[in-house]
């Protein structure tokens, strides 16, 4: 088990390889369909994303009635491939060094990871409780107008469990599994 601790950097993520099981401690920003489209259209990000990690996640959030503070009750990853048209650009223009999601991403993202120093981390899809437990605080909410699941949530996490499935060296576990399963499929059919 490897550890990745805030502040993050392209150098630190370049050390990681496909198959590494990693515990992330520090800051994450959620961002999914609406946010990626918004950034792609050239809008300015309300938060500085340089050297940050984006988490493809639409959490279930509730506001504490007494303190008025937000807290997260469920926060698993959403399918990443929907951001494939935009992700490479967000890596290039905003300098993010990590993407957390599920299901993996395509060649454009893989190429951008290699060129700019970024890694794709796979969280376990559906494991919303285990992952919510690792969120220690909600530190900010931006672009609330997109609806709560689609907004940007600034989160502090501790030992957030992920697996590197696309590294900064052009390797992708998704490509590998797809090739192997295709061979198996052809034998079956």
């Amino acid at each position, binding site marked *: 088990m490897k550890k990745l601790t805030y502040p993050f950097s392209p150098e630190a993520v370049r050390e990681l390889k496909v198959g590494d099981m990693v515990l992330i401690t520090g800051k994450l920003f959620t961002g999914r369909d609406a946010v990626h489209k918004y950034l792609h259209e050239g809008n300015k990000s309300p938060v500085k994303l340089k050297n940050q990690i984006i988490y493809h996640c639409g*959490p279930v959030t509730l506001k504490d009635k007494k303190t008025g503070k937000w807290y997260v009750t*469920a926060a698993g990853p959403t399918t990443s491939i929907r951001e494939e048209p935009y992700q490479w650009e967000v890596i290039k223009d905003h300098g993010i060094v990590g993407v957390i999601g599920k299901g993996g991403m395509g060649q454009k993202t893989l190429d951008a990871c290699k060129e700019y120093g970024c890694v794709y981390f796979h969280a*376990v899809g*559906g494991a919303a409780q285990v992952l919510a437990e690792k969120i220690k605080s909600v530190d900010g909410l931006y672009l609330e107008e997109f*609806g*709560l699941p689609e907004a940007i949530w600034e989160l502090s996490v501790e030992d957030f469990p992920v*697996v590197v499935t696309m590294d900064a060296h052009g390797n992708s576990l998704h490509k590998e599994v797809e090739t192997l399963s295709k061979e198996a*499929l052809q034998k079956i*059919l």
Partner: protein
Amino acid sequence: MAKKKVTKKKPIKKVTKKIDPKKATLETLVELIRVTSTVVPKDVQDVLYEARKKELQNTSAEYAMNIIKDNIELAKVKSQPLCQDTGTVIFYVSHPAGFHQTPFKELIKKAVTEATKKGYLRQNSVNSLTGENAGTNLGEGHPSIHFYETKGKEIEVKLVLKGGGCENVSAQYSLPDTQLGAGRDLEGVRKVIIDAVYKAQGKGCGPGALGVCIGGDRADSAYFAKKQLLRKLNDKNSNKILDQLETEIVETCNKLGIGPMGFGGKTTLLSCKITHANRVPASFFVSISYMCWAFRRQGIVIDKNAKIKKWLY
């Protein structure tokens, strides 16, 4: 010394609260939503825990299955959603003749709103034209409610929460499919089902479970396929041909090596349930509804006082 106060014994009145049937039904429906969202049915849990043992040690597949197990336990204890995508909310209501559907529909809607406020459901319903999220999980077609009049005397409510990730990898094929070499026969059906599982890779949060319908028109075929998800994973298809096909599909798909989350591994598919419907000679559809490992399905029988008489799964 303080004197003991002598209190007259009052005759104990039996307070019988009048049950407000609307309120009781509402509570019952919210409870059904809570349990569906936070607890995996036993038949699913059994298959998942069995699959966990099959993965090789110290692999990312085993790691994923361990997190899945932890998540199932944590969600139950904390009474919070298994997955943040609490999905399309689909109700299947069976009722005797004379039952009034309209007021029951209104109560279901109220229960959905209430469950959303309590965090059992995410604010998950978006207007397809405007992109607006009202935050209530109500809107055109939401929640999805199906009513069935039965000969029975009881009201039975089943609920499925169908996540978007697995819905997106669900598929419909039209036979023949020349690319796959799939003809209009059971062999062709087998091929397209396996192809759907291959195409899903890890994107539907595998290991997954399938509901399949052979035949029907496009709409009914998809509807019947999804309804197969109401079957317990350990049941047996009464149709021998389909029973055999179900077993074969699971065995074959687990040779694909896609594994939990698509990390590579032993278990790609937990189960496959198949039904069939007549078709017109010109069409031959096969519909496949893919359900993620966080298989959220529950059901209840409601008694006369609108309380839960029995859990169905």
